[in-house]
């Protein structure tokens, strides 16, 4: 179980793994995630199901190296296995024909955005993708998105590819140009915060998929809690998607920093074992 069938790197720090998980492949819908543990001493970390193949019984995970656990996963190769994979968790995205849907993905957030965008397209929407990355090397899944999107706009912070500037610039161009009925934003918390501010100005309903710290992923611990519309919600069972205009991003960003010192200690120690 949980064998890795394929492993490739999409960019220097982003790995793509195809994992044998037949039950999860059968059941998953866009917007859902799994909790993964690499080894006996490992953490439980959430990763979005970026794609699934029911026939082959596999799911695709796309993971960006940011610390110990993600680095460990990125180093696993075809033939080895993940110790634990549990899911599909979270509520699926509510897919319907809205008209025009704007899919906004930043960094590794493009991975979870991909199946959602594709599902909106398949439901008959006009789909415009706006993808942002710091620099050309960090941009992932552009070709895959462009394959079904009606239009794909790429923004890089340094202008090394696509248009130069932050993602909101590309988004605003679309919003000024044509009516948009729904926006979906997935990426770093700050990015989602600014996308939400922008789409609110244009009166476009927006959903954001949150990547809070998690432990169990089943509603048991409350590690993943966020404030949405002034109420505490659990991202793992009430989300991961919420009304982007109601989320308290500042609180969420602070909570993501809970273990900064410990994460660094752990990562330094781990990198030490690699060299």
């Amino acid at each position: 179980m949980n064998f890795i069938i394929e492993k490739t790197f999409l960019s220097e720090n982003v790995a793509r793994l195809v994992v044998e998980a037949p039950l999860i492949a059968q059941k998953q819908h866009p917007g859902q995630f799994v909790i993964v543990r690499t080894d006996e001493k490992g953490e439980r970390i959430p990763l979005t199901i970026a794609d699934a193949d029911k026939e082959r019984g596999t799911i695709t995970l796309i993971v960006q190296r940011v610390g110990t656990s993600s680095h460990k996963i990125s180093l696993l190769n075809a033939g080895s296995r993940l110790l634990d994979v549990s899911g599909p968790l979270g509520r699926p995205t509510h897919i319907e024909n809205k008209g025009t849907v704007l899919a906004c993905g930043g960094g590794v957030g493009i991975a979870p955005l991909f199946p959602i965008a594709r599902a909106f397209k398949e439901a008959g929407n006009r789909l415009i993708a706006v993808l942002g990355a710091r620099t050309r090397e960090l941009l992932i899944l552009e070709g895959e998105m462009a394959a079904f999107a009606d239009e794909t706009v790429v923004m890089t912070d340094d202008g090394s590819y696509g248009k130069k500037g932050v993602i909101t610039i590309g988004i605003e161009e679309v919003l000024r140009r044509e009516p948009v009925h729904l926006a979906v934003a997935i990426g770093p918390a700050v990015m989602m915060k600014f996308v939400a501010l922008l789409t609110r100005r244009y009166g476009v309903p927006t959903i954001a998929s949150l990547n809070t710290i998690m432990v169990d992923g089943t509603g048991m611990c409350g590690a993943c809690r966020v404030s949405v519309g002034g109420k505490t919600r659990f991202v793992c069972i009430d989300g991961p998607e919420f009304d982007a205009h109601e989320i308290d991003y500042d609180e969420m960003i602070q909570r993501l920093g809970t273990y900064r010192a410990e994460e660094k200690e752990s990562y330094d120690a781990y990198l030490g074992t690699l060299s």
Partner: protein
Amino acid sequence: MPVDFQDLSADRGQKWREDLRAALAAKERSALPRVKMPELAPAERIKGFREVNSGLNEEMAVREAKRCLDCITPSCVSGCPVGINIPGFIKRIEAGDFLAAARKLKETNALPAVCGRVCPQEVQCESKCVYHKMKKPPVAVGYLERFASDCERSERRAAGAAAPVPGAEAANGSRVAAIGSGPASLTFAGQMARFGFRVTVFEALHELAGVLSYGIPEFRLPKGIVRSEIAYLESIGVVFERNVVVGKTLSMDDLKSQGFQGFFIGSGAGLPKFMHIPGENAIGIYSSNEYLTRVNLMRAYQFPEYDTPIVRGRRVAVIGGGNTAMDSVRTAVRLGAEKAMIVYRRSEEEMPARIEEVHHAKEEGVEFLTLTNPVEYVPDASGRVKQMKVQNMELGAADDSGRRRPVAIAGSEHLIDVDTVVVGVGTDPNPLIPRSIPGLEVSKWGTIVVDEETMGTSLPGVYAGGDIVRGGATVILAMGDGKKAAEALRDFLRREFPAG
């Protein structure tokens, strides 16, 4: 649980029991002092997670067993939710046949090594012991239960063999599923396996046994004991599937199409309650579930050897007065807190925690701020909690539960410095299962509605028990439910599928 006094008296009437009773006069028995549980010294035990109670030795156990008067109508038994033959197992200890004592326990209790350690005996079996009438401390039923089952376990380990299955029936090929792997499901599974059914237990987490694994800490319930009980269940044919979230990974319909004919839901009351007061989402504020899960299940106390971190607070406040709160505060002490506090809105008398845990917590230097209730948390600029605002309380008139209701004293607000807070004010039933099974009747509290006699839910062939039915309760009540449900499901399946 109705007690079968006929069974008890047949057991009591055996020749060896008569001889044993004759060997020592009741007067001499009742003159013996109650045994004291040997334990690690506080200064020693707070350095780590070793079990605090070290267990009775043989000599102590036999001496304590002598105190039991082997009553004709043993009132203690009616205090035990599963009706264990208490004098029956205790007299076997007195006779020196510890393994027979353990077998006696296993007839009614699948997890005696767990119950002997965590049952609130002072309000159950021991509260009904005849010694209270003599104004003397009751027989130490819990300590003896633990002793006998520990003997049996080390014997089993030494022999490397599976224990015999008491009262096993021939395999009948019918498949049943238990959802969740807490004490309710484990008991159900053991019982069904004995009845000859093929049982599979589905657990959402990567580790089995529910609260026994992720909640109750090592220093109260060593995980090796839980693992050995699981190994025993595996040896009698129970299959365990980890990382399966029923309702997500597999639905009830999937299980039916896989051939399962009967179901038991033991998914627990895992949803943590918060108080919804300002600042509660500040960094450093945990639910007790998260705090204990990080430490027990994920071993954050061994960070960075293990990857899961935890905030090791210097000034830790734990809100609540139950077992969960005591476990959390004693965990904080072991993680190096300089000041560890229990903040509870009623007085110590109303605390639902076991008396032994309160006592141990005090020995370990925990401060008790009773009649105190938090109203707000104050974070620093980076969002970390730095202070909590509390109110003093006084006890007013009794509420529905018969406990006196705490009422805030106006103008009593004051600030306490803290860097970590653990909110242990209870849990709600996990909504995942009820949400995912259409037609399952659920109460307004989110618990699954059952027929108390059979533990049957509103759906035929689907039974439920433990905390998902009761809200937060106890290990032994969960086990009692599992057992009742197993008997009812067996009868149901025999009726529905007579050929099987």
